[in-house]
Structure formats: C-alpha cells, structure tokens
C-alpha cells in the first residue's frame, strides 16, 4: 500500500498476477468505496491524548475549537465561557492567552505558536527579567503621564501642550527617515496626562497638604471662602451660633483631593456644588462620575441655612449635616457609609422644611 492510494488495504497474496486484468467485484468482494467505509480506523498513537488548538474550527486562534474536540463538547460553549469571562475579571481572557501561546496547533505553526516557542526558548529567569523590564517601562509611562498632569495642574498647561505638539511633529518628521516608533508610547502618555488634567481644570497652585478650618462665627469665614490645591480640606461650621447667624455663605474650592464641610443637623444645606471627576455627597444625596453638578434645595428660605458654592476638580466632596460625624470617620453613626446617608437626607428634609 502506498500513500498515493490508501483506499484499499489488500493483502499481498490476493493481488492479481501481473498482466492479468483485475477481477470484477462480486457480492463477497466489496467495491473500493465499500472497502474504504469498512476499513477500521487507524490505531491511536501511543501515549496520552494531546490537547491541540484547532486549525480548522477556529474563530481567533482555535483554542475553543481544540478544547471542544478534546473534551468532545460543542466549542461554542467554550467560546461563550471565554467571552463572558471578560466581564467577570478577565481571568478567562488570560487563560485564553496562555492556551493560545503554549498549546500547539494541529496545523502549520501559527503566529501564537511561534510566540510561545520564542517564550519557551527564552527560559524562566530571562522571561521574568523581561516581565520586570516591561513593568518598569509601564511604570515609567505612568510617571510621565502623572508628571504631565502635575505640570498642567501647576498652571504650565501651555508649555506642556507645546511639548506634546513638538513630539507629534518630531514623530511625523522622522516618518520619512524610517520613523521613531519608540517615541510613540512616551508621547501618548504625556498627551494623556496633560489632556486629562487640562480637561478637569485641575489647579493645585493653592498648595498641597491638609487644612482644617473651624470658624466660630460667620464673620470669621473669609469672603473668598476656603480652598487650596491638593489634599484634604475640612471646614467644620458646627461651632457657629446658628441661632444668631441664620444664613451663612461659604465658598469652597479644591483642586484634587477630599473636601469635607460639616454643619449641624438642624441646618438646611442649599447652593450649588460641582465635582469635575469623582464623588459628591451633599446632605445625603450621592452622585459620582464626571462633571457632577448638584443644586441643593434651591430656593429654600429655611433657616438656619448654609448657602454653599463648592468646586472640586477631582476627588470627593462631602457636605455633612450631622451633629456627630467626624472628619476622620467615614460614617455618620452606626452602620456603613452609604447606609448612613439616609440619616443625612432625613435631617436635610426636616431642616429645609423648618422656617
């Protein structure tokens, strides 16, 4: 038997003599097609069953097709599993990547298999060193992006923008002489950091640190309010005699960080707040996201009343109407942070209904 005609596996003794025409098939002698159907499957190769990626049944690199064949189930089940796993931590996507690289294909070696071969040839220590190098490079890009954002927040937006434009122009100019692709990641990192900081209108020129203000009267509050660049700002107005002051105006302006304003539970909180990106919790009303604007109890004439104008670029703004809350404690009484916000909403409703 040769590879050219594998359909008939006839014993040598049954072959007709040379020169004699082959005999017609009889009822006992099956045709070639019948012989092909009746021929037993070739014996399985010795050794354990091997997992191979499928070269025929593949959507990406044949991982699900190979797993389906190995476990004798529909590969669609694996495809759905891998797809869903992306939305639940991405562990399945990571597993898919590992299988794609380290499980060989049953056909000609593809790109994933070649990459796996290269990785295996590198060795463990060299591989770890490469991973460490990659992490350092990634960290460097984060530092570049953070540095650019910091510079923009310090008011150097225009110089940083010019640097970004110059990097872009340099890249475009080098394109004719082979290009400078290595410049793309750092340039993109700088552009990203600068872009996010510029769009957030972050301004940290007012300083960095922690400020704690506890004025004893409305007159002690500066006309332009309280504010600084980056850090934790606490304005506690609970020492004010609210029965005498009745209405207190307060401006708060923070670049990046957390701003906490405290008033007694009996005070109606009114005014407007803006958070560029982050979370806003004003008298128990919680919002989060980008450009979070909140008009609180607008038009209320209740007294005592706080009229606040707060602006936070990035971070968390809290206006807490509670007699017991503490700036160092996230909660306002028993229970977790969010459960307690109902207490603040109730207090606000009572305070703003009073006249």
């Amino acid at each position, binding site marked *: 038997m040769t590879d050219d005609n594998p359909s008939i596996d006839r014993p040598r003794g049954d072959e007709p003599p040379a020169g004699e025409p082959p005999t017609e098939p009889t009822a006992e002698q099956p045709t070639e097609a019948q012989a092909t159907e009746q021929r037993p499957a070739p014996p399985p190769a010795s050794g354990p069953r091997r997992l191979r990626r499928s070269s025929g049944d593949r959507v990406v690199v044949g991982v699900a097709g190979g797993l389906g064949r190995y476990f004798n189930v529909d590969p669609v089940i694996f495809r759905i599993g891998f797809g869903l796993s992306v939305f639940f931590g991405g562990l399945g996507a990571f597993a898919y990547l590992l299988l794609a690289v380290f499980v060989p294909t049953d056909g000609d070696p593809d790109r994933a298999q070649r990459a796996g071969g290269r990785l295996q040839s590198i060795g463990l220590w060299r591989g770890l060193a490469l991973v460490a190098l990659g992490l350092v490079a990634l960290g460097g890009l984060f530092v570049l992006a953070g540095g650019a954002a910091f510079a923009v927040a310090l008011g150097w937006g225009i110089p940083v923008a010019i640097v970004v434009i110059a990097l872009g122009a340099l890249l*475009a100019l080098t394109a004719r*002489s082979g290009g400078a692709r290595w410049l793309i990641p750092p340039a993109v990192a700088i552009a990203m950091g600068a872009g996010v900081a*510029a769009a957030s209108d972050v301004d940290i020129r007012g300083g960095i640190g922690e400020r704690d203000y506890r004025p004893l009267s409305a007159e002690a509050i500066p006309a332009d309010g309280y504010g600084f660049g980056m850090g934790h700002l606490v304005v506690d107005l609970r020492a004010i005699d609210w029965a005498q002051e009745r209405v207190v105006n307060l401006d708060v302006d923070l670049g990046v960080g957390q701003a906490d304003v405290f008033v007694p539970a009996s005070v109606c909180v009114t005014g407007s707040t803006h958070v560029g990106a982050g979370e806003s919790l004003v008298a128990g009303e919680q919002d989060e996201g980008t450009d979070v604007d909140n008009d609180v109890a607008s038009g209320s004439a209740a007294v005592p009343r706080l009229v606040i104008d707060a602006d936070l670029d990035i971070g968390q703004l809290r206006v807490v109407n509670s007699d017991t809350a503490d700036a160092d404690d996230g909660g306002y009484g028993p229970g977790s942070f969010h459960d307690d916000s109902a207490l603040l909403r109730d207090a606000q409703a009572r305070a703003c209904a009073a006249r």
Partner: protein
Amino acid sequence: MRTDPVSLASGAAIAALGALVLLDSSGALDVSLGWIAVALSAALGVIVLVSGFAKDDSGRQD
C-alpha cells in the same frame, strides 16, 4: 527610504491632542473630560489601526 505610516499617523494624532490641550489651557476652548476621553480614544484607535495595516502590508511583501 520608505515613509513609515505608523510614525506619520501617530505624530499627527499626538500633535492634534497637543493642540486640544493648548486650546483648553489658553482658554480658547473648554474641553470636558468626556470629550478628551473621546479624543484620546480616537487617537489611540488611529495609531492601533495604522499599526495593524502597516503590519499587514509588510506581511504581504514577505
């Protein structure tokens, strides 16, 4: 020497981002975080897309 399309497209995209930052920082334009996210995604998309096409072209030449 042949022009590198990836460097050319990336340079243009990054310069456009820089122009956006410049306009915002100078007060000529008020770009929101949402729009900067769109611009950054578009720039990254252009870079990835052109890189993919460039790789495809070089593969065909092999």
